[in-house]
């Protein structure tokens, strides 16, 4: 395997213009599979959610899940697509053991939705990503290859097949070539997938959890010399399954392509695997010849012909779309576009909203999620939502601060405790003994001691230099190991010294 010495990102962009194509698969959250009545619930014993149809047994037939079609139309409408008046499913023929019929029931040249766009915000500016199509298809089963070095089928001793996933409805959303993103290509890619995920979630058609494989992204990338019209040869990086990875994959491929092209080499059209550990990609299967899927219209299914009345009804029932909602929240929360962009990029909008719904003030909710918690998520390399803390728990911490039971430092420790699995905020406060010392007697004693030990400073304060009180507050906080409410300590000091604050 040859290792290509990467070109620096800046040098790559100086010489080449990146063109991207993003293909996102979304598993719909329907109760039953796309073509049969089997459950789609995750986590069941292998092969317990199967029937003759999703096992592809001889004689079985598919029947279209109406909710699946409805979800597809909603997605299409939210992506500003045209909705087909009449379209068919097609068979995509190829052999693979986890595909029960050895063809995938998909859509080919007649997608349910086509010609749309999705506006995304990048650095406070709007970038329009054009949508080629959104079509319906079914998922395959899941293979586990045992005994090989790579976990892939070649070299495996045996393979385990679980068909619970076979037939789960998928919507594949394909962009038109994304041009003009320039050096912002990685951010545009990430912003697009982020926006799409928000959109899917807001429609209620899928939870779109990337870590659960409910949303998967393939990144197609090519470079062309600056100023050229013709697209270069593309690579297809498969299964890039987090927002951060999308950005990294684009960045890596830009640098790799630039290195290959810069050395006078040519890019091979191939699929590549993305590696989370170091953000690199490696060559997968080289397509020796263009794969011929021998698509033809699925004769077992009647065409899908959504009436215009139904489509309009669905359009009328669409929820407030994420970008609109975000602009509303931005105003409500009093944020700049940039600040709101960071909130979106961090995947924090719903978390903050939920925290506010649990009673926290907006600024506090944002402070925690975008500060301490974002830092932790980043350190741990996980999505913000994956942190083991709930919006309700964050709201509870905010409430404890507000009532004076915690100060900022103690609140931080409480959150640390929750993240460490020590229980809810109240439990952590009790276990760690983090409550602010609010016992007036104990606090009074500490204040008296501090005044006695710092007579000179006390005199200055009595003489009117109120600013000097800080030193005494510090002494009291030290004595109480930080567990006092600093504001209250200050009040007590001034009170005891007979000075107005």
């Amino acid at each position, binding site marked *: 395997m040859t290792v290509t010495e990467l070109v620096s990102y800046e040098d790559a962009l100086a010489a080449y213009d990146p063109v991207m194509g993003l293909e996102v698969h979304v598993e719909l959250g329907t109760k039953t599979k796309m073509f049969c009545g089997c459950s789609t619930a995750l986590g069941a014993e292998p092969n317990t959610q199967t029937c*003759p149809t999703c096992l592809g047994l*001889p*004689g079985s*037939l598919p029947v*279209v899940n109406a909710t699946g079609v409805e979800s597809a139309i909603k997605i299409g409408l939210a992506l500003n697509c045209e909705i087909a008046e009449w379209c068919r499913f097609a068979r995509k023929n190829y*052999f693979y053991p986890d595909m029960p019929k050895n063809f995938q029931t998909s859509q080919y040249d007649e997608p349910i939705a086509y010609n749309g766009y999705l506006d995304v915000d990048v650095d406070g500016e709007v970038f329009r990503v054009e949508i080629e199509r959104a079509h319906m298809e079914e998922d395959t089963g899941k293979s586990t290859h045992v005994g090989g070095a790579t976990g892939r089928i*070649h070299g495996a001793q045996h393979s385990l097949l679980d068909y619970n996933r076979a037939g789960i409805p998928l919507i594949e959303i394909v962009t038109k070539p994304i041009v003009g993103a320039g050096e912002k290509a990685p951010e545009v890619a990430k912003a697009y997938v982020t926006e799409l995920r928000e959109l899917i979630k807001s429609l209620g058609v899928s939870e779109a959890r990337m870590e659960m494989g409910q949303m998967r992204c393939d990144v197609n990338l090519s470079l062309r010399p600056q100023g050229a019209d013709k697209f270069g040869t593309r690579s297809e990086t498969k299964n890039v399954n987090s927002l951060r990875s999308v950005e990294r994959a684009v960045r890596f491929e830009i640098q790799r392509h630039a290195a290959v092209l810069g050395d006078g080499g040519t890019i091979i059209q191939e699929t590549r695997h993305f590696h989370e550990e170091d953000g690199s990609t490696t060559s997968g299967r080289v397509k020796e010849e263009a794969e011929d899927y021998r698509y*033809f219209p699925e004769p*077992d*299914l009647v065409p899908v012909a959504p009436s215009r009345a139904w489509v309009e009804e669905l359009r009328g029932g669409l929820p407030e779309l994420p970008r609109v909602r975000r602009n509303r929240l931005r105003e409500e929360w009093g944020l700049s576009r940039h600040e709101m962009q960071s909130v979106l990029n961090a995947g924090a909008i719903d978390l903050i909203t939920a925290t506010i719904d649990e009673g926290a003030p907006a600024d506090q909710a944002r402070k925690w999620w975008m500060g301490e918690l974002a830092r932790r998520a980043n350190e741990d390399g996980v999505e913000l939502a994956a942190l083991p803390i709930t919006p309700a728990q964050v709201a509870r911490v905010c409430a404890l601060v507000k009532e004076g039971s915690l100060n900022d430092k103690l609140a931080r420790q409480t959150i640390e405790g929750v993240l460490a699995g020590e229980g809810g905020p109240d439990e952590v406060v009790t276990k760690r003994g983090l409550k602010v010392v609010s016992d007036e007697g104990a606090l009074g004693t500490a204040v008296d001691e501090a005044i006695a030990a710092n007579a000179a400073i006390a005199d200055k304060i009595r003489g009117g230099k109120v600013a000097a009180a800080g030193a005494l507050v510090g002494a009291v906080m030290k004595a109480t190991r930080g567990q006092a409410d600093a504001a209250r300590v200050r009040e007590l000091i001034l009170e005891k010294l007979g000075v107005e604050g």
Partner: protein
Amino acid sequence: MTDLIRLTAAETAARIASGEVTAVEVTEAHLARIEAVDEKVHAFLHVDREGALAQARAVDAKRERGEELGPLAGVPLALKDIFTTKGIPTTVGSKILDGWIPPYDATVVQRLRDADVIVLGKTNMDEFAMGSSTENSAFGPTGNPWDLTRVPGGSGGGSSASLASFQTPLAIGTDTGGSIRQPAAVTGTVGVKPTYGGVSRYGMVAFSSSLDQGGPCARTVLDAALLHEVIAGHDPMDSTSIDEPVPAVVEAARNGSVRGMRIGVVKEFAGEGYQAGVMQRFNESVELLRELGAEIEEISCPSFDKALAAYYLIAPSECSSNLARFDAMRYGLRVGDDGGRSAEEVTALTRAEGFGAEVKRRIMLGTYALSSGYYDAYYGSAQKVRTLIKRDFEKAFERVDVLVSPTTPTTAFPIGERADDPMAMYLADLCTIPTNLAGNAAMSLPCGLAPEDGLPVGLQIIAPAMADDRLYKVGAAVEAALIDKWGHPLIEEAPSL
């Protein structure tokens, strides 16, 4: 007891309902007949003696309890081995399904059981319904009861032969290009291809999904109608199933008449390749229809000349995809799994050994026709021909109520005669294929024996989609007139074996 096997299904049901005979007696009589003659005929691949008798006992118990019985309760039936049967092997005439026991019943089977029809067993067929002689079965050919050295037609030769040899009064077939009608024609029995979507395909192992249609086989028009009514009707498990009331086929069969009807004779189905005796009996039938009060008109359907070519692109294309699932991974035959071979190699070895020559030929044809770069020229053109054929039918049915033609150009040919000549074999379905491509309904019923070989000739009646009842109305009239003429049904002239 021998006369029990010669009764019609309608008579049998009546006698069981009245208590004159029991369903068990009827079933035992047919099982005994199978035992006596099927070694010679080889119509059955599997006889479910115990299951049949258990079902028969249940029917008798129902009657004793005074429960109302359906119109075919207790009547035996032979099922083409293309329908899945829970707990009973289903081979589709192929080695590739060796050892597979389906975990579910086809909708047709479920409806038969619900109607208390006794399923005697599964009948022989060309592998995956690909053929016109039943010689392509992996389990050996079936003999034509009229002459055991000749073919019983195909692909449903097991079903037609079981009827003509009185092993059963009812059978189920499937018709993709003529596999119900052509076997009926060459065995002197009645077979109906209902309107596409009229009978559920759920549990019917697919050959060519857009053409396959299950239907009734019997020795009389009324029996076919009674069976038609049991198996037809909307099925939510089959997306292509028509959600409309089943045409009143039984009523039509009970009131056969052609008086005042306009009947078209398809001009294209005559000439070179048509046996003289077949044309003679067909022309006599047309005269008979005129005598019975029909207006006869010649109708030209020029696109029918291209039907065979279009069929041999569409059916193989769909089959190449439908049969991809037989990969040794989940069920059926598995060859070469010695621990050292890859899944891909095992799949290839299994398919090489498990499929017969005709199936392989069609998979290859279809794979080629669907290939990128060839799709438009082959599959695309064939679909255009299909549209033309539909239009020819539409135009024809603006002028006439039904069309008639010979069912098949020749009588039963000798076993082995066309086995090495696929084109000659394909020509047997020349007259039946247009109906499959257009999706409308057709029937074959006996109209005499060809003078030169004494073998049965079939008359085909073709009706518009969802006008299946017209087939029975015309068929019943012809049948009654011919019985009047001959003094007995034609099938009584079949050898007793």
